[in-house]
């Protein structure tokens, strides 16, 4: 029967490595395609999974369904223009992507950023991080079969989106960061609304714990699932909550502080178990740390300019510039090679999702299909971030 369905539904790809050939010769495995349209992949990720019964033997990610070659596009855009494109990479942490880009451009221009702009940037980053983790929390619970958390998460996320809309003008792809500062000053209501949100949010996190964290079914679904050891996490280049759940200290905000991150108090959350539950806990605890950062900064926004004076046409000197920021998913690297012109000669975005995805096969071998959803959910993959 397995053989028969496999032949009839045969849209598998030819085996390429010796490892795969060995498996094919043994005749083991039912190959199923998860994606590119599948409820659990949250985007157009295509996973070719070889199963034996319900147990996963091999996962092969096929990427590129949303590859827009942003790196190539950026080569023809000026240093002001290319920032907006990066909002479309990891669209959930659009602010932080933009931040990485402007940091890199500013490094090249050797611009001094006004303190007010720095604080605003950090505030926006942390709000984005909360919004991103909210969406992750809802979507992950939905992957595991609980639908209701999604709506609770979106309720709080909506508040952040409204704040963003008021100050930045858009809800998702803000393009608020410009080289030298931010595009506008914050809205007069901004501080009040953020404070209201923080107050509301603190009470809601406990509700999240009641609904999902403590739930016995959830714990059984995630504990000990998809274990990634510390060595593997480093070798696979896993960063962000995925790396930190495996015990790797990889928070760029702590290691290589940018803007005012070295002046605020917050903890880098590190768990050592490396399983899905640890990744979950890291993100949930990070929510509280983000709240802590916002609480410290919201009343202390220094007066002054929100934008440094820059030339109308920006030209980076010849050379190479690299900036690293911590997005909600991990380390984003922006590598600009400049030939001295108005457009970058080559841009490379080192996206966190790409490296995290490469560990998926390693983590999920021997797990059940149901576990794959827990692993993918806690990896928090955003497909445009992987494909770029």
């Amino acid at each position, binding site marked *: 029967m397995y053989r028969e369905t496999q032949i009839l539904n045969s849209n598998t790809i030819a085996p390429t490595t010796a490892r795969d050939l060995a498996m094919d010769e043994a005749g083991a495995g039912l190959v199923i395609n998860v994606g590119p349209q599948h409820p659990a992949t949250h985007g157009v990720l295509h996973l070719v999974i070889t199963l034996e019964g319900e147990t996963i033997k091999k996962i092969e990610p096929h990427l590129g369904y949303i590859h827009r070659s942003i790196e190539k596009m950026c080569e023809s855009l000026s240093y002001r223009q290319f920032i907006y494109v990066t909002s479309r990479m990891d669209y959930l942490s659009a602010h932080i992507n933009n931040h990485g880009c402007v940091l890199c451009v500013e490094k090249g221009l050797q611009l001094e950023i006004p303190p007010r702009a720095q604080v605003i940037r950090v505030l926006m980053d942390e709000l984005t991080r909360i919004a991103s983790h909210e969406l992750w929390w809802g979507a992950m619970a939905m992957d595991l079969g609980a639908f209701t958390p999604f709506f609770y998460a979106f309720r709080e996320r909506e508040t952040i989106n409204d704040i963003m809309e008021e100050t930045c003008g858009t809800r998702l792809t803000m393009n608020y960061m410009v080289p030298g500062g931010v595009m506008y000053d914050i809205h007069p209501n901004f501080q009040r609304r953020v404070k209201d949100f923080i107050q509301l949010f603190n009470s809601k996190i406990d509700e999240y714990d009641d609904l999902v964290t403590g739930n016995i079914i959830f714990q059984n679904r995630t504990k000990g699932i998809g274990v990634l050891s510390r060595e593997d996490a480093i070798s696979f280049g896993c960063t962000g909550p995925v790396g930190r759940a495996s015990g790797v200290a990889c928070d760029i905000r702590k290691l290589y502080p940018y803007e005012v991150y070295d002046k605020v108090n917050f903890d880098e959350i590190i768990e050592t178990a490396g399983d899905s539950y640890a990744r979950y806990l890291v993100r949930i605890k990070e929510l509280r740390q983000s709240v802590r950062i916002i609480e410290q900064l919201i009343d202390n926004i220094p007066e002054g300019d929100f934008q440094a004076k820059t030339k109308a046409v920006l030209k980076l000197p010849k050379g190479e510039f*690299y900036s690293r920021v911590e997005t909600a998913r991990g380390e984003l690297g922006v590598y600009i090679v400049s030939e001295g012109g108005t457009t970058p000669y080559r841009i490379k975005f080192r996206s966190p999702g790409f490296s995290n995805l490469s560990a998926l096969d390693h983590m999920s071998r021997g797990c059940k299909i149901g576990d794959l959803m827990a692993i993918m959910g806690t990896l928090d993959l955003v497909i445009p971030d992987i494909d770029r």
Partner: protein
Amino acid sequence: MTKDELKEHITQFQPKAVFEETGEWLNVQVETGDWKPVAHWLRNGVLQMDYLFCLTCIHWPTAGKTPAAGNTADEGSGGIFMMVYHFTSTVFRHVLVVKVKLTSDHPEIETVSDIWRTAEFHEREVFDLFGVRFLHHPDLRRLVLTDDFEGHPLRKDFEDPVNMIKL
């Protein structure tokens, strides 16, 4: 470790290495043939570069032609590919950028995916978008583009009259 210490260690292991210090981090250029032992040493040697956080390639289509770039006979006419590896160590927290120059005619380099597993995907991406061949890579196929795609889009001389609009 400071830049000078890094430099000292690298020179001890690889006297031929060329250094460049203009950027934020220490850049070192090694020969294609020396790359694999250097990579092994970087990972397991005294520097303990266990985290490869960025792997990419830059194409200079005309660099080979200009005499300023040190054009030699074997470099051919098609310019160069520069492989760029960004390393850091989770123990010492120092960053090192390693560059390997490849000729456009034979863009081939030894894989490092057996040393840093993240390189497996990154090298597939570079193979896909630049056409650099990684020797002994376990699964060198196109990653983001379709298998029958012609050309390598991130090369500077790539032309696609249908999908690329010149502004």
